[in-house]
């Protein structure tokens, strides 16, 4: 479904990604784990067109997307839940969700998806007229995921959804991620520092260090890999 072929991305003169190649198959959950500053967020931003690669190719369903504008990429069916949630603080919960459906024209479909989201996260329905910035961290994460879902993506990119959340909320968020994948068949590309949790729900995983992919395996394989255990699982 998605293929990154030897991409190199720079911030000014600093090379953040060095020859990264990743493959995502339709319907799977893949995870990219690694330390702070390894290049995980940059990888997602390269896919979304915010930090386009200087060289290399990104193919979505066989079509090159590395030269496209971010809005065109969203239109193809790739949505991102960025690190830190990035809720529009002065838009209401409703308006934040509307922004997720920005490119859609099918009113009925939008309405149905909205109902589905309110059923999944009743708290958002309760707070629909509240400003996004006034929500708690967990609620903001739910809103961020919901906003991305409102675009009805076929590929959902999630950047550190567990960041700064209480363990019980993290558990909840991960259940939801699995549910999205299972119920609507949405392919999920999950970036996480919490490697343990991420590898438990993923089919496959990649490990990133200093802008390079250093390991790639089935998630179950990475969970028992000695190097991964030492570096990322804290065992």
């Amino acid at each position, binding site marked *: 479904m998605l293929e990154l072929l030897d991409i190199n991305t720079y911030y000014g003169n600093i090379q953040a990604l060095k020859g990264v190649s990743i493959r995502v198959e339709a319907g799977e959950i893949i995870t990219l784990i690694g330390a702070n500053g390894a290049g995980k967020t940059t990888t997602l931003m390269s896919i979304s067109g915010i930090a386009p690669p200087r060289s290399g190719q990104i193919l979505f369903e066989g079509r090159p997307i590395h030269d496209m504008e971010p809005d065109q990429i*969203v239109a193809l069916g790739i949505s991102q839940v960025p690190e830190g949630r990035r809720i*529009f603080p002065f*838009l209401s919960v409703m308006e934040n969700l509307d*922004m*997720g459906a920005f490119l859609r024209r099918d009113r009925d479909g939008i309405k149905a998806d909205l109902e589905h989201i309110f059923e999944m996260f009743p708290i958002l329905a309760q707070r629909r007229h509240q400003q996004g910035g006034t929500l708690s961290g967990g609620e903001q994460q739910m809103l961020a995921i919901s906003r991305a879902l409102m675009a009805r993506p076929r590929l959902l990119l999630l950047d550190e959804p567990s960041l700064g959340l209480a363990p019980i909320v993290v558990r909840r968020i991960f259940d939801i991620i699995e549910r999205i994948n299972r119920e609507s068949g949405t392919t999920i590309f999950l970036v996480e520092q919490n490697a343990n949790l991420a590898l438990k729900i993923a089919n496959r995983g990649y490990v990133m260090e200093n802008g390079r992919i250093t390991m790639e395996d089935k998630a179950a394989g990475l969970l028992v890999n000695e190097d991964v255990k030492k570096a990322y699982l804290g065992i």
Partner: protein
Amino acid sequence: MEYFLELFLGGLTRGSIYALIALGYTMVYGIIELINFAHGEIYMIGAFTALIFASVFTLLGFNDLSILLLASLAAVTWASAYGYTIEKLAYKPLRKAPRLSALISAIGMSIFLQNYVLLAQTSDFLPFPRLIPHFSFMDPIVHVIGSAELVILITTAVVMIALTLLIKFTKLGKAMRATAQDRDMALLSGVNINKVISFTFIIGSFTAAVGGVLIASHIGMINFYIGFIAGIKAFTAAVLGGIGSVPGAVLGGMVLGWTESFATGYVSSDYEDVFAFSLLVLILIFRPEGILGRSTTQKV
């Protein structure tokens, strides 16, 4: 009391014009964090366009009110085209450059447009026809507020309300607010940022041109330099109200208008600018984010 009321309404009229121009500064700043120094020139070009079209329509024998409407229509269209083009030529190529580059480009654009009009037209003051008709029903209160002032107040109110509705309820308005709050996230939601920026420049130029036509036909004279003075005042109004905030620009315009009007009425017209800019200094010292501005710290 009547004198006070006269000054109050005079300040409100003056403030309306400042507010119409300030909207352009504040919206552009909200979206791309640029002080568009060429914005005052858009207002001036609006007034000149109206003058040219008004002259033509006068020769064709139209009546005052239809001249006012047609000339205004021409002015806002022309000015919007200028605003759109200026962004594409002078700011878009510099979008990834350091912010100072775009600012300098804006100042250059302002100087260029002033001199362009100076060369293409004249350096003298040109008489502008008083297009706003005198309403006889205003006669009993004409010593407090004239017909022209009434038209200015009503037009400004209509423009403000329309703009507020547009920003609050349309898809484009939502995209503008989202872009102002978090540009990358707006991109990730599928917003075409170029369209939003162009649109912002068009609306800002539109309101500035409305202000230009109204004030020119009220005062009755224009020259190539009016945009500079009005631009500085409107920029002050935008900062007073809190740059980036639309209601702030309106409030800032009014506060500035009243300050000048009362200073002129009770102290001396020589000191109107002293009071206006002293107010700016005080605001910058005690409330740098402006009256309605938001402090930049946000919850992450």
